[in-house]
């Protein structure tokens, strides 16, 4: 029986800025994500994906609305929230001077993984992600593919029920991206609740159980791919996206280009 692991209620982020005044980067976002599900957050650069996910990870604080991760509210129980999620993005890097084994041990420990089972967990992860050959070399000496494996293992080091992947494939080559998607799919099969943001349509199409389309900080639609196809009458996700973006009123979908320049 799947349970709701992530829920937001009118989650809003307003930046105040001397120059522009109020900027509503995220505007009344309502999403949910259940165990064993991958929720795709699909939007252009600057649409508010990263801000939303960073609020869930308690790096940024919401200015309005609420969000719960594994039953903990992000403002009231920030540490429990962080203990129950793994956050992975292109901007989360690894410590260069320590080895993969030390990395896993460190992150399991700071995320309060039970001490008694810690070594066992580290061994399991090394085995599962195929890191035996390089588990004791320093991270700075590893290739980017190896680093990526360490990074994902680091994300799940404390076996969190919720995983957040913020544009994980953005800097990867095709083969590494495919491998990463496979790993994410397997994690879903382990029963994790996974939120996955991307601006690549094909990726969302292949991987996500449900897709939330976000544009200018607002969620325009949330449904399965089939559901979206039915409600818009388009087959390809790209067309579906453009359909919603155009009907959102404010700008045309090409607006994302200018957003990219500024944001």
């Amino acid at each position, binding site marked *: 029986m799947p349970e709701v692991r992530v829920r937001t209620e009118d989650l809003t*982020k*307003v*930046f*105040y*800025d*001397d*120059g*522009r005044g*109020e900027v509503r980067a995220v505007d009344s976002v309502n999403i949910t994500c259940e165990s064993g599900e991958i929720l795709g957050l699909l939007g252009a650069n600057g649409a508010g994906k990263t801000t939303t996910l960073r609020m869930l*990870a*308690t*790096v*940024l*604080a919401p*200015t309005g609305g609420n969000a719960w991760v594994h039953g903990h509210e*992000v*403002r*009231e129980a*920030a*540490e*429990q929230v*962080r*203990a129950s*999620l793994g*956050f992975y*993005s292109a*901007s*989360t*890097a*690894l*410590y*260069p*001077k*320590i080895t993969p084994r*030390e990395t896993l041990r*460190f*992150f399991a*420990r*700071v*995320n*309060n993984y039970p*001490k008694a089972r810690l070594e066992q967990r580290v061994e399991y992860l090394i085995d599962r992600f195929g890191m035996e050959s390089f588990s004791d070399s*320093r991270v700075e000496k590893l290739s980017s593919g190896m680093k990526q494996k360490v990074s994902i293992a*680091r994300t799940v080091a*404390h076996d969190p029920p919720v995983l957040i992947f913020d544009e994980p494939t953005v800097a990867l080559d095709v083969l590494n991206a495919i491998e990463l998607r496979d790993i994410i799919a397997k994690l879903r099969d382990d029963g994790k609740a996974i939120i996955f943001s991307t601006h690549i349509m094909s990726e969302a199409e292949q991987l996500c159980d449900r897709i939330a389309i976000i544009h200018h900080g607002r969620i325009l639609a949330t449904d399965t791919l089939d559901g979206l196809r039915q409600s818009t009458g388009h087959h390809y996700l790209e067309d579906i996206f453009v359909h919603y973006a155009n009907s959102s009123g404010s700008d045309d979908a090409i607006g994302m280009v200018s957003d990219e320049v500024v944001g």
Partner: protein
Amino acid sequence: MKITPTVRAIIGLELRSLIRDVRTVLMSIVLPVLLMPVILLISVQMEDRRVERESTRTYTFAVTGAEGAMAGDLLRDHLGSETTQSDGVRLARVEVEDPRAALEADELDFYLEALSAREWQEAAEADSTLRPGLDDFDDTPVFRLVIKSDRTASRNGADELSDRLIDIRSDRRDSVLIAAGFPIPPAEVAVFDTANVASLDEVQGARMGRFLTLFLVMLMVMGGSVLAVDTLAGEKERGTLVTILTTAASRDEIVTAKLLAVIAVALAIAVVQVVNLWVYLGLDLIPVGSSFAVSITPGTAAILLVLYLPIVALTAGLLLLTSAYAKSFKEAQLWLTPVLLGMIAPTLAPLLPNLQLQSAIIVVPIANVSIAVRDVLVGQPSWLAVGIAWSITAAVAAWVTSLSVRALSDEAVITGDTTRAEFLGGPALFRARVLRLFMLFWAVKVLIDFNLAWDDLRVTIFMNVGVVFLAFPLILIRIFKLDPVEALALRAPKPGVWIAVLLGAPAGLLAFTIVAQFVNLFIPVPPEMLENFGQALLPPDIPVWQIIVMMSVIPGIVEELTFRGILIHGLRTRWSPTLIALVTGLMFGFFHFQLFRIPGTAVLGMILASVVLMTGSVFPAMLWHILNNGLALYLATQDVDLSVESWPVGVAALAALGMSMWLIWKNRTPYPGLTKATRFASEPATTLASGRR
């Protein structure tokens, strides 16, 4: 501050990462350890060589003048033609045609010009800088030692001969006196002896106490910075900061761990350096003149350890804070020099003679503990004062640490983005930069005041006050494309305000004097300085009315434009009006440089700032400022002492001031754009309040 397993894990990670960075360890730790004795050795040897050279060299001099023959005989009788002193200094008399030319040409070290009394009188009349006053001794010859003071040898040689001459004269006087029937050698009259009640340990403790804190802080900053600059700024750069911020570790735990790691490295390096130095000095590998070895009892050592705790924490906290606000390793590195100098400056306090802990210095963090340490080493300190000093520095250390925690909750600091203000420029950027610009301006003004002075006081005032304070706001208006009327608050106030100003300015002047009297209790002014200051203000060759006009009208207008005009305009969205008035006043005070003038002018600045904030106009403040300065100067020329002796006068002055402020409040026109309220509404957007619990 709780040492949780998470804290231990992070400390382990930090230290492990540092130790594995071989090149950094080599260059930042090993190299200095090796270099320190080398530098010390060189300095000691250079000094030894210099002393030896000076003590063995022969100083050449000539004797000239009308009484030259007498002086020559005197020297020959008492010193011989060329004399070797007991300590090896030789004075060699040579014959030259023109001693002055020879001295100029470096062929002589100095010469003795023996003048008759008449010659001396004539010379003294011709040159007023010569010391006259030989009226009582009509026929006394004068031995003038002519030197060229840009040469060390010239000064030292003349000192040597001068000492010899004084001895000769003393001997001769003694024999004259004894010949006349004086019963004892004059040197035996009222002989005094000194007895030092301090033990050798105490004296050496006092000597060491002057340098100990300076030495330790220097080592700690250098050592701690190795880790500190890399830990937060470096993590931002490498992208590991977001990684660690999304773990279950709380901000408190992260800062605690990093602080402890910095402290550990700083202490370790300081200890290594001290031991290093101790080995070289203790084993006499490097000879130094006086022994610095002080027998410190375990008790004293424990007290010192406790005393140094807040300094250690503050050093580490400041380093961490620097790192937290820097966007990259590089930037953190750049700010290290100012942090180092800023930390070292207060540790120099115990080097100043006669500085007591029971004085205003007790509120200056670091400086107060440095003096407390000296007092403890001397023995029998005032424990109350030591305790207060310790608490103040500890409180500042705690505050700095909490700032680091806050920095990790500040979204702009974490993401390191360029703010929109920087992107847009113009008025928005001006508001973000106004305080920094004023600090820069302050420094430039110091340079201007210290280096530019014209012969005519009027020109100096016109340039250093009039032009400078007018140019600064105008430049800012131009660069940031501000609206001049808005920026300088050039609006008309309600008429009632003017009456209030006429009442307030004289009352304010009295209030100002009360503040000055009060402050003088804590920051005593050297009387000579006050006198010089007064004389510099009122030179005798310029008509008084001109000075009054120059020194009241010009500053009254341009200083108001700068401080109550553009500064308040820049701060108006930042803080509450009260805080704006306080900061504006303080800034105004610091622009008056001399320590004793700062508190009084700061109070005046606060009053003027409140007037502007209440009237929305800079003009009443200008009138107030002009009246204040004019009145003060006029009363000074009339030798009226403003110090308030009786309390009723003081109370009356304060009441009048209060009434004037009340009148202004009744006729108020609020300063436009005090938008702190709206800014506050969205404040949570920029700080993460929740990160901690």
